[in-house]
């Protein structure tokens, strides 16, 4: 069974159709890279998956559960919406860490609030609460060492380099254990010298049960790390396939042009 099935997603902003029917599916543990020129709708697609914008049409199915279907959409409660959101994690281009909290707190904040809610629902005992919260902190530390920043756990975001901030943001997204982790150009706001460390971390996350969608302009990265590459142009999936095929033998004229420009660094 696919982890994710996206079917015919459409989205317009003020009469201009930005997504014109996007469909694809992903298997567990798969990494999909989305490439495409500016304005092709890549960010909008990720924002639809994370319910930051509501699609006009289409459906999203995660692990067989329909999390969105424009046909049956009703006024969802905030609670339902939040539960559905948690299937997805999001790493933003410009990190959006919480500046007033240190690195560790940035990672534990949402997870703790979530656990508190669950504990309250099943009227857990004080000891259990303590145990769960200790577990949250423990997990956060594990994630921090995974992104190589355990020694920075008490630092504030403003004391970190862009690359370090982005690695914290990755750990923060992972702390809620999403089924699918989305990255929106995770290295575009970074100095070229810092992109490497972030891409290495993302690459290191690849495992049999971690499914990721990475919007990127780093063609080398897409080629090496992705299992599947989606090329978007003007709101449609112009071409999709294995990296070898997309980069090696592109069929569409648009993609060929795009790859040529990317090579010349345009």
């Amino acid at each position: 069974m696919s982890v994710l099935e996206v079917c015919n997603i459409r989205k317009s902003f003020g009469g201009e159709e930005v997504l014109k029917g996007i469909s694809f599916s992903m298997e567990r543990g798969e990494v999909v890279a989305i490439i495409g020129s500016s304005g092709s709708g890549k960010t909008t697609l990720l924002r639809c998956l994370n319910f930051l914008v509501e699609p006009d049409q289409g459906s999203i199915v995660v692990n067989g559960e329909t999390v969105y279907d424009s046909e049956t959409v009703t006024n969802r409660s905030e609670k339902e919406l939040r539960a559905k959101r948690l299937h997805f994690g999001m790493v933003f281009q410009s990190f959006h860490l919480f500046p007033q909290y240190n690195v560790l707190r940035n990672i534990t904040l949402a997870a703790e609030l979530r656990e508190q809610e669950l504990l309250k629902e099943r009227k857990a005992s004080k000891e259990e609460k303590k145990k769960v919260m200790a577990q949250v902190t423990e997990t956060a530390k594990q994630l921090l060492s995974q992104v190589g920043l355990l020694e920075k756990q008490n630092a504030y975001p403003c004391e970190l380099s862009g690359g370090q901030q982005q690695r914290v943001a990755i750990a923060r997204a992972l702390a809620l254990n999403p089924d699918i982790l989305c990255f929106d150009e995770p290295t575009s706001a970074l100095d070229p010298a810092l992109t490497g460390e972030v891409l290495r971390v993302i690459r290191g996350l690849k495992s049999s049960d971690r499914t990721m969608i990475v919007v990127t302009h780093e063609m080398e990265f897409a080629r090496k790390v992705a299992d599947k590459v989606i090329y978007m142009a003007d709101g449609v999936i112009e071409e999709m396939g294995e990296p070898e095929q997309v980069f090696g033998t592109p069929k569409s004229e648009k993609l060929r042009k795009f790859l040529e420009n990317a090579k010349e660094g345009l």
Partner: protein
Amino acid sequence: MSFIDVTMQLLDGFKVTMLIFFLTLVGAIPLGLIISFGSMSKLKPLRWLTRTVVWIIRGTPLMLQIIIIFYGPGLIFGAAPLPRLSSVLVAFIVNYAAYFSEIYRGGIESIPVGQYEAGQVLGMTKTQIFFKIVLFQVIKRIVPPMGNEIITLVKDTSLARVVAVVELAKAAQDIVGLKGIIWPTFYIGAFYLLVSGALTLLFARIEKKLDYYKG
């Protein structure tokens, strides 16, 4: 009249000054928040109405507002006037709430939308996002302008004398009128300086406390 006598009499006025000062803060700080929500409302009529009211309050002298609230009800409806001090407090609270609301609005609107979105994708509720993420950042941003405004309030309390509330300035004025000595008028400057000096130090401390992070 000896220095001690004058000081004692001025202290009575000073108590009223401080009363106006603190009660205005207690009323205006929360009322300002409500007004700021109104002026950021998604409902256009409410937003428009709130902003118009704020514009009128900020666009007219506080002294005029005190006079209108004290004499207005009697002149227009023939109603009994509010007690003097109460009229003054109503005018001060409304006036300062309007100024505070604009400071809050500026603070809230300056928080990048990415902060809200980061909270949303982490499954946080709107309330959690406001209280756990946004509020503290807003406070950090509004402390300096709030400090300015609150120091201005210390001095504005002297406007209460237009409806014969005997606060510090009126107390001095009365002594000057009765005894024919002028120096108490200058002497009250020291009281205002003392309070605004203390507030300046207080706000500098708060700012420093909040300065552990940038952004």
